[in-house]
C-alpha cells in the first residue's frame, strides 16, 4: 500500500528566510511521481512542484526546490526567500501505477513579516 507521511503539522519562517518541509513515502512501485501541492487559506489547491522518481536530478521551480532521496524514500520541499504569499497548507502526494493520488496530512506554513 502507498503511504505518505508529513511529520511537521505546523512550521513558521521569517520573511526572506529559507524553510524546508519534510515528507516521507512508501510504495512498492518501481516508478512513481511525487508532488507538492499548496492550499492557501480558503483557496484552491495548486501544484507547486513535481518529481519523477526515475529522474535523479532534483526538480526546481523558481524559489521552490526538492530534495529527493529515493533510497530513503524522502521528498522534502525547500522554499527560498520566503514570501508572505507562501503562507498556506502544503501537501505532499504520490502517484503511481494505480493512478491514485495519495496525500499526506499536510504542513501548515506561516510566513512571518
Amino acid at each position, binding site marked *: 500500500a502507498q503511504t505518505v507521511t508529513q511529520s511537521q503539522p505546523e512550521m513558521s519562517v521569517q520573511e526572506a528566510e529559507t524553510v524546508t518541509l519534510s515528507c516521507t513515502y512508501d510504495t512498492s512501485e518501481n516508478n512513481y511521481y511525487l508532488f507538492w501541492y499548496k492550499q492557501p487559506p480558503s483557496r484552491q489547491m495548486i501544484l507547486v512542484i513535481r518529481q519523477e522518481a526515475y529522474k535523479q536530478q532534483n526538480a526546481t521551480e523558481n524559489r521552490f526546490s526538492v530534495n529527493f532521496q529515493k533510497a530513503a524514500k524522502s521528498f522534502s520541499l525547500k522554499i527560498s526567500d520566503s514570501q508572505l504569499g507562501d503562507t498556506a497548507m502544503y501537501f505532499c502526494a504520490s502517484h*503511481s501505477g494505480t*493512478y491514485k493520488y495519495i496525500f499526506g496530512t499536510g504542513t501548515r506554513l506561516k510566513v512571518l513579516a
Partner: protein
Amino acid sequence: EAGVAQSPRYKIIEKRQSVAFWCNPISGHATLYWYQQILGQGPKLLIQFQNNGVVDDSQLPKDRFSAERLKGVDSTLKIQPAKLEDSAVYLCASSLRRAWGNTIYFGEGSWLTVV
C-alpha cells in the same frame, strides 16, 4: 482557461438531510475526482471517473454517498442521509487523462457542515 467550478461553496444541513454538490471540470479533461478533506487532514479520494465511467470508488461510503458523471462532463456528488462526520470540504478535481504523473487541478471546494 476556466478552472474547475464547484457549487455551492458553503452548505449547512441537519443530520439525516440530503445534499448535492456539483462540479464542472476543465474543458477537455477526461478524468474527474471527488475528494473529501476533513479539517486537519489531507484529501481522501472518494471516487474517480474516466469520462462517464467509474474507475475507483473503493473509499466511497456507498450506503449514503453516490456520484454520477453524465455525458462525461459535469458531475454530481450526493449525500443522503448526512451524518455529523460528513462535515468536510468536498473537493472536485480534474486531469487531462488518466495517465501516470498527470497534474490534477482542483476546484475551490464545497464546504459542508452537518449539525
